[in-house]
């Protein structure tokens, strides 16, 4: 996808949780802890505005820390992919 890059301020928006690209070591550790292969993680499109701002590449794993009404801080992981989930 081309087009204008998303604006920086979206990262500051209160509805956008904190995203972070994991380093290779961290990613391997996460995968090992969960006992999964990368494709068994939930996926996030490379066209996602935040992913584009982070300059993540397909295959990267992104850690999302978000506030949860039930669990305090909930950590989720997303695998960056170059295609949409459904066809």
């Amino acid at each position: 996808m081309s087009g204008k890059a998303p604006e920086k301020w979206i990262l500051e928006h209160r509805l956008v949780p904190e995203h972070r690209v994991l380093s290779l070591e961290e990613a391997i550790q996460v995968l090992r802890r969960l006992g999964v292969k990368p494709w068994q993680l939930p996926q996030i499109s490379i066209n996602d505005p935040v992913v584009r701002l982070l300059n993540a590449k397909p295959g990267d794993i992104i850690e999302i820390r978000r506030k949860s009404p039930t669990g305090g801080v909930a950590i989720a992981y997303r695998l960056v992919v170059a295609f949409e989930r459904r066809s």
Partner: protein
Amino acid sequence: MALKFEKFREPYVIESIKFGLLSPQEIRRMAKVSIMRSDIYEADGSPVVGGLRDPHLGAVEPGESCPVCGNTREECPGHFGRIELARPVILPHLGDDIHAMLQSTCRKCGRLLLPPERISNLTRLYYRRLRERWPRLADVVVKSIIKEASETTVCPHCGESQFKVRYIRPIIFYERRPEGEVRLTPLDIRDRLEKIPDEDAVLLGIDPKSARPEWAVLTVLPVPPLSVRPSITLETGLRSEDDLTHALAEIVRQNEKLKSFLSTNAPETMIEDAWLTLQHVVAAYIDNEFPNIYQLTHRRKRPLKTLAQRLKGKEGRLRGNLSGKRVNFSARTVVSPDPYISINEVGVPVEVAKTLTVSIRVTPYNIDEVRKYVLNGPYKWPGATFVYKADQDRKIDLRYQKDYRKLAEELKPGDIVERHLIDGDIVLFNRQPTLHRMSIMGHIVRVMPGKTFRINLLVCPPYNADFDGDEMNLHVPRLEEAQAEARELLLVEKHILTPRYGGPIIGGRQDYISGAYLLTVKTSLFTLEEVSNIVSRAEAKTMVSEPAILRPKPLWTGKQLVSMFLPQDLNFKGRAKISSGALKCDSEDCFNDSYIVIRKGKLLMGVMDKNAIGAEQPNNLPHVIALEYGESKARELFDTLFRAFIRVLEIKGLTIAYNDIEIPEEAKEEIERLTEEAKREVEELIRQYREGVLEPIPGRTIEESLELKIIERLQKLRTDAGETAIKYLKPSNDIFIMTRTGARGSDVNLTQMAAMLGQQTIRGRRIVRGFRTRPLAHFKLGELSPEARGFIKGNFREGLKPTEVFFHAIAGREGLVDTAVKTSQSGYMQRRLINALQDLTVSYDGTVRDSWGNIVQFKYGEDGVDPKATYHGKPVEVKRVIEKVRGSGG
């Protein structure tokens, strides 16, 4: 009968299923006979050789032996036949794929229309990595390959120039050549598809081993065996054939017609026509609802049920026969209430108990008991229906035996007896719609006379059952493993708490609530006789305490009686349902008895009503007891204390009469005054509107503002009138008790009976439908007054005016339509949700995964908490902790 009696056989396990296309060779290899005649029977009634009932298709008649395998009809699996098509036929279901293949390959050499080095590159990438690891991505890549190849105009392999192919669904293909559009016949298409090499087919997303491209164009059609399409003999002796046979006969007919045209050199147009018809018929044979084909019908009427129709839809093979099998060892009848059985039990009619059986193995320890069953035979409960003799490997049906005594004496350890259902057996009980896991629960059998299933009233909420004719289903788990599972996991008491929102789903409704109120209200005192009546019925285990009043005669308070059933160290407090309006209390300092305080198992203060014992009321008494004392303790409470509530009601009585909704003259006058005032204000609003000085509500037109303001004012009028009327009701009034305690009815119901019905609405607006500018002919044209727009001043006690009846009926009908629409829509949504979520599980590491191990949630609910074990969603309720510590410490 039962599978377990058969010799154990190594089970086959299905590891995977692969779908592909049958090759013509495969079809011919399977086929034992070629079908060439469309007539089924000869004049003498014997099947036509080479017809659709050729004996080579398998033995189906009793005594017939199969000419292919030599078996009789029990053993013969049936054999395929074939129809050799005179000309090839396209499968329209694969039309889009055929189109894609034609467009992306060369019309001359059949290669994929990409440069050779790109093909080899892609093959490497595609084979090594994608197909296995990222099948989804592979599909996307295939799409882009097809797109890229379709846009090529000159073949990079042989230099042939390429043309666009136009596909008109379902069957026709055209090629856009410079000289004009040329029709591609299935013959041409098959030729082209044949030329596609295997390596290139792979890049088009095809596995050539299981589906060569040209197999999408049929040259020979398999004919399923007779056992797949059995014919039935009607009473008249006439034979009626299966729909599939009719469809196949039509194919044979068209095929033979085409054949004869070809051999007699008929005109080209006739051949074309017959060929096209054959294609339509074959398409209909596979799916008779395929768009834009000629449907096959029974004498121009009912469409035939062909292959796809057998699988599709609610009654199809998948939803009707595989997901929805009919089962044995089940019963269904009407349910009726019985407050004197445990919530864990179900009353089963003797007749049902004699039909449903459990198999038990004879051991030296139970042989005497089992002998009694056999001695009783199949018709006397508790008896037995079958005896399986282990040493003789023989089943004996007791219905055809005379000498039960002999059979009973001959019983040996190791034999198996099918015994009637008896008290204490576990069964599954279910009421549709099964929306919940609590819609199927395990109950303990209690065999009783009568013809209905009996259930305790307290289990109505989870099943959403009532007794206006509801029927329920009962299933008997037959293996010891299943029975143990039912007892440990499905028993009613394990489902007192719901995982939906963290609260009890089982609890009192209606009479239980009014009963509890009448028991605990301050004015209720009970004599020794009454106390023993109540306490004995409720099977209390503790001694009756000292009476609260000793003279002139001993009297007990209801609160004392309740305390007898509570755990000795229970501390609890909370607001009662009646705590509202004049009786509102928020703390222990309460003079209205509307704040419940239980200390050390003694109910010190407050009345019990919906908030304390009602079903689906989080943080009520049963909830706290189930969480802190265990579910069996809560069940004990339901089986004892709740019986006392019912008993109190039987002693005290609860009934309503006309005069219960009668209000004094001064109340009527007050309501009249309120009405006049409201009317004046509405008239004033209308006047302002007419003069154009009405203040509009932001974002609304003047008309909308007027309507909203009028509705608001009239709504207020009804509330005021209701409050006035209720103010004058005596606290001992039974309707008043019911609405106040939450047992039945609301303040609105009471208002409508005693004071006024108020504004009737359609979709939240006043009623304007009917004639052009007025709802009924009784009003002036364009009249905006409350009466002309559905405001009802009357009430149910005094009766309605004719116009009011119409308005009420209009609003009432809307309610009925709404519920009908809502249930069907939410039912379908539920179905879709369940289908999407059914095999997600919480795994041992707390993550939620699907059946492939893909992660859906990293921690169940983001906190890993089971809502069933919470106080209304809170894993730890600080208020409860304080209450427990404070209450016990003193």
